[in-house]
């Protein structure tokens, strides 16, 4: 855990529960950010963007590179964090747009299997590209940047967790405003609902798809940085398992549904932390997969259901 805080005394079950909840919400927020990228891309072109996890990992790497560089040059921590966040989000947005242009756009008329395989190929390509350029080993974040925390009734909340949750909430609010209040957001929803019709009212769907990829990638990059800060390091293959979990979150919330992805992410994070805390930490990754399978089997439209469709994009 970041910050090096230790409990002052042995915990009561209630305190343990609350601690797990706090940790779960932190993790869940990060999953929600990644899940949004999946859900938005799926909503608009019905593609599981396998490479999304790698975009998230690239964001984590950009974060560690920029933060270490800025921090080494004596910038204050908040400036480092802010600048790294913005630059990494921008970089990943460009990366995702390039990815879409190269690997998905030429396949717009092909079978779904082809696009899916192309996505898978790009995922492997980017993951190994990260390995080649950044090395096989973990890269450490300068976690000494933000240290400490506070105790509330025996529950430790680190400042880093506060920053993560705060940023996540900020990004989610901004995203909601973007999607529901702006012209481009409305055009995104229109394109997701009917591509031919949106062309008939003069919307350039290619541009909207690019924007969607960029937004999803920006959120994933922010999530990558936060995870790096939370766990203290990044690794080239860090995108794979969280990618599947975030996709599970998107499915859990009903794919294509923005509010659903947020809720789903939160739920998956909390469930994972509780499963690790109460059942078995070795098998914690299994639970996310089991949830994914169970949701798809028993309620394929997700917890938000098909009737609550006003939040689908």
């Amino acid at each position, binding site marked *: 855990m970041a910050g090096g805080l230790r409990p002052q005394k042995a915990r009561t079950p209630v305190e343990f529960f609350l601690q797990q909840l706090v940790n779960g919400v932190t993790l869940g927020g990060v999953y929600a950010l990644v899940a949004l990228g999946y859900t938005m891309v799926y909503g608009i072109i019905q593609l599981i963007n396998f490479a999304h996890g790698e975009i998230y990992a690239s964001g984590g790497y950009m974060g560690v590179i920029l933060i270490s560089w800025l921090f080494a040059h004596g910038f204050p921590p908040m400036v480092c964090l802010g600048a790294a966040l913005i630059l990494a989000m921008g970089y990943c947005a460009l990366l995702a747009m390039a990815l879409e242009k190269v690997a998905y756009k030429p396949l717009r008329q092909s079978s779904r299997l082809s696009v899916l395989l192309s996505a898978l190929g790009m995922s492997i390509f980017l993951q190994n*590209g990260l390995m080649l350029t950044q090395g096989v080993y973990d890269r450490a974040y300068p976690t000494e940047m933000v240290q400490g925390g506070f105790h509330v009734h025996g529950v430790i909340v680190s400042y880093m967790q506060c920053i993560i949750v705060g940023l996540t909430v900020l990004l989610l609010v901004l995203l909601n405003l973007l999607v529901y209040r702006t012209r481009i957001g409305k055009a995104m929803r229109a394109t997701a609902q009917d591509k031919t019709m949106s062309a008939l009212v003069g919307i350039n769907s290619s541009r909207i798809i690019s924007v969607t990829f960029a937004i999803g990638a920006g959120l994933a990059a922010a999530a990558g940085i936060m995870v790096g800060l939370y766990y203290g390091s990044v690794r080239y293959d860090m995108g794979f398992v969280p990618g599947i979990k975030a996709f599970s979150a998107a499915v859990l919330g009903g794919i294509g549904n923005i509010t659903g992805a947020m809720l789903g992410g939160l739920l998956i994070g909390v469930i994972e932390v509780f499963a690790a805390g109460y059942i078995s930490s070795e098998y914690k990754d299994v639970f996310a997969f089991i949830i994914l399978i169970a949701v798809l089997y028993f309620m394929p439209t997700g917890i938000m259901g098909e009737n609550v469709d006003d939040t689908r994009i």
Partner: protein
Amino acid sequence: MTIRASKLWLRYGLAMAWFFVLLWPLLGIKPEGLEFAVSFAIWIKVAVAAAILLALYQLNKAGAFGFLTRPAAAAGRVAVGAAARVPRWLVLSVVLAAAVSFPFFTERYAHDVAISVLVYIILGLGLNIVVGLAGLLDLGYIAFFGVGAYTYALLSVHFGVSFWLCLPISACFAAVAGCIIGYPTLRMRGDYLAIVTLGFGEIVRIVLNNWMSVTNGPNGILGIKSPGAYWWQGDTLEHIWLNNLEQLYFIILALAVFTVIAVYRLNHSRIGRAFEAVREDQTAAELMGVNTLGIKLLAYALGAVFGGLAGTFFAARMQFVSPESFTFIESAMVLSMVVLGGMGSIPGVILGAVVLIVLPELFRGFQLYRMFVFGGVMAMMMVFRPKGLWPAKRLGQRSEERG
């Protein structure tokens, strides 16, 4: 022509500039400072390679290689014509004869590579049933390989069950595993299926990794027996272990030939046609009286059987198994063989396995770049040649490819 050419080069320039911008942050920003040299070195390689390819492409289009390609095309036509006249049994027997005599002309290292190729051919053909024939994208296929390998490993180490007996047992276990994985996914749409099978594959690996009391976790299982056989030693029939590479090569060759024949027969059977019907149009297939759920389950089970067979052999050949051999990357590798070769095509899958195993062996210096290139090639294949190197012959087209 000149205008178009300049436009092409402009695009190339823009793409390369963009690529450099993308590359530089990951390679050039260090805590010590900014550095251009590394990313520039990589960028210049890619830029030069791409420029050469582009120039070749343009020259080819302009007909500069006419003196080369025209005779080559003519020769190709002659060769194809001649090949069509050679009866197929002759081609097959020549290939088989070459495969059988292979170990007598080659060394240990070549045997080793050939064994890997054959294992992957079996895996590729098994996955081909699921992906190529039935059209169900399975990203956790390697789990069946793992089930087969661990079945034999455990039975061999704890109960001393022989390899030959274990082949059918492992195949059954794998088939059951296939049904277990297949059942909940039957009603799912294609792309959900992909992620769910991926999840199942990971579950199997995580369980193998953590169930210490049975699988010995990440340390794996040691001391698995090789296949045994009775053979004349002088005058007496004695039990021996077939543990040198030559003998193992023949075992896996036999398994591979069995697989090819089985998959070929399956392709041309009623069930094979049902698979294709489900792939092309599930609703129509159902209306024609195909039991689509049963057929899908059968596809999983049959695919798993070959995975299990290959796994059993793998455990016997390595005499050691650990969860590390059953990661997602292996699934992706088998899948890229199927895709590269051509989905649904037996010679295609064989070609894919040969290419993907032998090429990296030839370029051992580039070991690290293997998966990097795979990923890129997989995406590019989908864009430029979605049917693979050796496409399957079929009647009619896929519904979504039409128009």
